[in-house]
């Protein structure tokens, strides 16, 4: 479509990794600091959208052969099932728990089940945002 977007494409190749890293950082920091699944998911999806803008839909689809509708569905499933998981331990629906573990390299680390829930949220956001934007772009 566009003839001469060497600069955009070159910058995007680098920028996408920076955005993805930042998105993951936001996602992981969400437990105690500003961030979380929703914002992390939005940032991650902006990386994918940047790829779609810099390159064309076909080549990105070839590079990332994923149906984003199903990504969103998987996200919702993970979130809801992580909530029902609490039922197995005799706790209320959507109960979360956490514990501290000594991991190699990282030292004392907090691991929590809410990460699963947030991962579902992030996947749902990525799936929905990308699906919406691709569909809008098909109309134009």
């Amino acid at each position: 479509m566009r003839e001469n977007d060497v600069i955009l494409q070159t910058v995007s190749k680098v920028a996408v990794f920076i955005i993805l890293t930042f998105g993951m950082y936001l996602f992981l920091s969400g437990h105690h600091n500003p961030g979380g699944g929703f914002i992390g998911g939005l940032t991650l999806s902006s990386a994918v959208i940047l790829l779609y803008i810099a390159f064309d839909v076909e080549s990105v689809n070839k590079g990332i052969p994923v149906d984003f509708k199903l990504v969103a569905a998987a996200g919702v499933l993970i979130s809801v099932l992580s909530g029902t998981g609490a039922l197995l331990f005799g706790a209320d629906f959507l109960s979360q728990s956490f514990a501290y573990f000594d991991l190699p390299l990282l030292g004392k680390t907090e691991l929590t089940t809410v990460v699963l829930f947030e991962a579902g949220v992030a996947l749902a956001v990525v799936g929905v945002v990308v699906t919406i934007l691709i569909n809008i772009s098909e109309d134009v």
Partner: protein
Amino acid sequence: MNNILVFPMVIPVITGVALLFFRSYPAVQRWSTIAAMLSVFAISLWILEDVRSNGIMRLDFGGWTPPFGITFVADSFAMLLVAAASFVSLICMLYAVFAGDKRREYYFQYTFMLLLIAGVNGAFLTGDLFNLFVCFEVMLLASYVLMTLGGEKKQLTEGIKYVLINILSSWLFLLGLAYVYGTLGTLNFAQLSLRIAEAGQPPILTAISILFLAVFSLKAGLVLYFWLPGSYSALPTAVSALFAALLTKVGVYALFRTFTLLFYHEPSITHTIIGWMAITTLAGGSLGAIAYVDIRKIAAYNVVIAIGFILVGLASNNAAGIQGSIYYLVHDIVIKGLLFLIIGTIIYLTSNARLDRTSGLITNYPILGWIFLITTLSLGGVPPFSGFAGKLMIGQGAISSGEYVMVGAAFLSSLFVLYSLIRIFLNMFWGEVLIPRKHQIPLPFPLLAPLVVLAIVTIGLGLGMDFMAPYVTDAATVLMNPEVYIEGALDNE
């Protein structure tokens, strides 16, 4: 801790979303939908029985106790509606399965039907005003999709009106929430009720309650029903039955909840307004029901009349009226599902929606004809069928609070209901046989079976009134005594 309470909402969500992965397997989609609805219905019956014997049940999501966390509260009123709604959706799903619209199935029809039911059940069960809004939105978003799925021209024109009007009312709902939170500092039903009682419902709160009245009236089709007949008649049969049975009832449920649990201190203002709105609705609905020759429109105006009728019970504001409304709500969920399935089937069989272009259908399809007659009698409130108990008790309630105008309007509207449906019966089912038997479109038994089941249920509900009575009495007791609900919903042991 009663985790079972979450299942009527979570099972449809999980099933609906999981079905997205089985797009090319219609058989999997169909039967897992039916299995999901069957289990939801069974679970809701179990909870209903448990609530009646052990009192109000509550679930605090994630262990966060009210008024801080998200809670689901099940009283008999909510559970009767959940059970009735789940049952009728199960039947509508069966009809959709046997009708087998391949294109809509491929575009996730079942997923959105399940999400709609999740929203409806969530709205019945939620214990705070904000999550009522959220569940309304879940239900409405799914209904927007179902409204336009298929992309027929009529669907799209009606769909845009439907979406706009609902977005406006959702916005007003949100505004009302902001007002309530600004004045009372909480959105939990039980705590709101306590705080409104402490403040004695000053004029500012009454004004806010009128805003909620407007919002829920729009969802329920009380006076503000102008969007309803057009949009309901643009839908495929199974979906239109689902809409007619469930969507307006959620608005009615919200009206009952807010005006029996929260804003019940100024009945001379709020309940009088509701009474006049009910009378207006009855009058408008009755005129609509006899004005049209399009049978889908007639059926849609019958939905409107029923809403007015149920709210006469709320407006009379006494135990008999409320009990009558509960009976009538359950009856109406069943019978409106049945009516719309029949109307859709007639249109499928004759490919026309005008009542003056066909006649003699009872010779072609005898069972369908007799089921339609049963539906007519049941809607009119003739004794052995399910409409009778509700009409009788609503009448008693209105008389004992001296609202003779409402009694007159309510029973006059029943005559209009009877007339409008008997007109369909006389024109389309009786008379000269226009379609020779060998040219008629066959009506396969699987398509007829859901109608037969619903017809049996409407007879059963009428004859088995005694069986339902303890649940209804319990539901009415909770509605008439807010402190029972508050104790069940707020008590932190």
